[in-house]
């Protein structure tokens, strides 16, 4: 036994014990590393600059959201959802609210449904913009994130007007939404759509078509469809592998069936395909927002008969929405009391991360960073 074998924590030792050939460098990428975006830790076995083995270690940001769901009442738990995935907080809001509404059979007014669609899609654009900037930062381009945050700022200002917060929203309510949107918001949202329509082509010219960037993304991290299915990958990761699966179309909810939008799919299976899917999704989200704004009906934003105190009947329910990272599912088992008996959160990042170990094998360290970025992970969502 050398001293090296005694070094490190439990995970490192487990990793070392599985090492078939000694003499390779073991690297700890994270929990504090610029390109793991949060507190993800990846143990890497390096052979020169090539990765022979990689293993993600998670749990550094575990906050027991599921357990908290069992302890808190339905209303008390709502703010938690904004903290699970801070980048697409409204989708998680929706998944939880939707599950409870489905269980209690609460009717949501149509105006509220449209407002949910508008805000959720706006939040999706924000999320993709952050991913876009951060991914390019991983690839060494410093400037795009500044442009992305500039655009995101416009959407955040709008969302702040009606939700009161800028990142961890708690806006949807059982039976509707918290506040109605006014003309100022509507004209602001239209301006934002216009802005995004002018920006996305510029981003394409400036970044997507860049030769260096394409060389860093194309044929990197090739994820065959079969493998994506095996790991339960969803969202842009799955759609980048050629599977046209989107919860908004596959298991329609809310007013999405009434709206006309495409599901972007790319068959190249590489990091560039995932990149293109997300950029195309931003375009589609702009389309959805514009349609929803023009179709916005008048009426209540809260169901008049929505119960003040949620006490669902006995039973269980599963409700899924499409988040920016994939399928967000909430499973809720109720025993008839004012707190759920069990709450299970299905987070897309968790499944998407599990791909990484297999995907990173045999790649260069720089490619592993590119792959990790292309999976668009949000660490709080993985650990919940």
């Amino acid at each position, binding site marked *: 036994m050398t001293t090296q074998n005694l070094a490190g924590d439990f995970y490192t030792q487990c990793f070392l014990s599985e090492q078939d050939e000694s003499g390779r460098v073991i690297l700890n990428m994270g929990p504090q590393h610029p390109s793991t975006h949060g507190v993800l830790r990846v143990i890497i076995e390096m052979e020169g600059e090539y990765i022979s083995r990689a293993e993600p270690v998670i749990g550094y940001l575990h906050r027991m959201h599921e357990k908290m769901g069992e302890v808190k009442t339905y209303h008390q738990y709502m703010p938690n959802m904004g903290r699970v995935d801070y980048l697409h907080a409204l989708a998680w809001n929706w998944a939880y609210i939707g599950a409870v509404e489905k269980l209690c059979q609460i009717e949501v007014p149509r105006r509220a449904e449209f407002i949910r669609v508008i805000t959720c899609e706006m939040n999706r654009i924000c999320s993709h913009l952050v991913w876009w900037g951060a991914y390019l*930062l991983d690839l060494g*381009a410093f400037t795009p994130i500044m442009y992305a945050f500039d655009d995101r700022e416009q959407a955040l200002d709008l969302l702040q007007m009606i939700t009161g917060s800028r990142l961890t929203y708690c806006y949807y309510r059982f039976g509707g939404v918290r506040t109605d949107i006014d003309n100022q918001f509507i004209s602001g949202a239209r301006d934002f759509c216009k802005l995004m329509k002018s920006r996305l082509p510029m981003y394409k010219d400036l970044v997507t078509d860049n030769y260096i960037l394409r060389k*860093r993304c194309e044929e990197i991290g090739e994820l065959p469809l079969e493998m994506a299915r095996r790991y339960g990958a969803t969202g842009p990761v799955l759609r980048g592998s050629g599977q046209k699966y989107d919860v908004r179309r596959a298991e329609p909810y809310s007013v999405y069936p009434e709206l006309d939008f495409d599901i972007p799919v790319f068959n190249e299976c590489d990091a560039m395909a995932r990149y293109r899917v997300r950029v195309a999704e931003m375009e589609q989200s702009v389309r959805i927002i514009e349609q929803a704004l023009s179709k916005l009906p008048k009426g209540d934003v809260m169901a008049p008969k929505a119960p003040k105190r949620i006490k669902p009947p006995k039973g269980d329910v599963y409700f899924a929405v499409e988040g920016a990272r994939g399928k967000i599912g909430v499973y809720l088992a109720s025993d008839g009391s004012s707190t759920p008996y069990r709450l299970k959160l299905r987070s897309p990042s968790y499944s998407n991360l599990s791909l990484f170990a297999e995907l990173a094998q045999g790649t260069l360290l720089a490619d592993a960073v590119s792959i990790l970025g292309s999976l668009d992970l949000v660490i709080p969502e993985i650990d919940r």
Partner: protein
Amino acid sequence: MMNILELIPAELIRILIGLVAILVFIALNALILVYVERKVAGFIQRRPGPYEVGPWGILQTLVDAVKLMGKQLFSPTGGDRLLFWAAPLLAFAPLPLLFLSIPVGKNLVAYDANLGLILILAFSGLNVLALCLAGWGSYNKWSLLGAVRSVSQAVAYEIPLLLTVLAVTLMTGTLQLSAIVESQGAWPWQWNWLVQPAGFVIFVICALAETNRAPFDLPEAESELTAGFHTEYSGMGFGLFFLAEYTAMVVVSSMCTILFLGGWKGPGPEILGVVWFFAKVYALVILMMWMRWTFPRVRFDQLLNISWRWLIPLSLFNLLYVALVVKI
């Protein structure tokens, strides 16, 4: 005999004055360039950049330098302390010598060595050693990876760099920098870049790689290697590397100016030579900054591919072309 004894002190005094001037220039230049870099980055990224300290934020870098000096010098446990601290010094020490033989104007040169070009190339090669020692002495795997990268990068890019320099010297027939400048005319179409455009482009690319600037900043690729070879450095240890990087930028830009852009020559009276020289140098420096804030980083194997598969054959052809066209 007396003649020689009289000559040596005069030369020495000239060199000493030159060295003092160079050291002052290095310090001032770094202060200004860091400010300019941050303002350029701010301009490209549509944000103001530093504006809080002093008018237009001019004093920001000065304050940063004071902060760096005030910081605790920290060396990692288990690291080789001698090598660890030798590295930043080694990165900084050759810099004054690099400027020694660079003519910034007519007769404005500290030491007009007849092998000036070789002097600069030799001393700038020491930078790799500094990076290598820093990576090894840090006792950090990320630093080590950065050091390994820097060595293979330097080896790969020094070859095309030397070949393009060789092509220029083949044309001018001298290694003396002032003579190379003299061989070029006052107007842009009389400069070497038009005679060997390929050499000029190759030189600029290699200069970027040699100074470890983006998109070739692989030894310190922060998203991959946290900060590469200078991960473990704090205070002025980091400050010296920083100083070295910004000075190296000016050195390669000066080289490029002298070899391809006519040095201090330009239209107008000769007294304007210094202005022309620095205008060209800083234009090149700003070009390097522009590239840094625009492009993503290349991957390591791509970086080596660019050199071995494209730049080296191209620079060989360039040399051949110069030999054929110019000599015949």
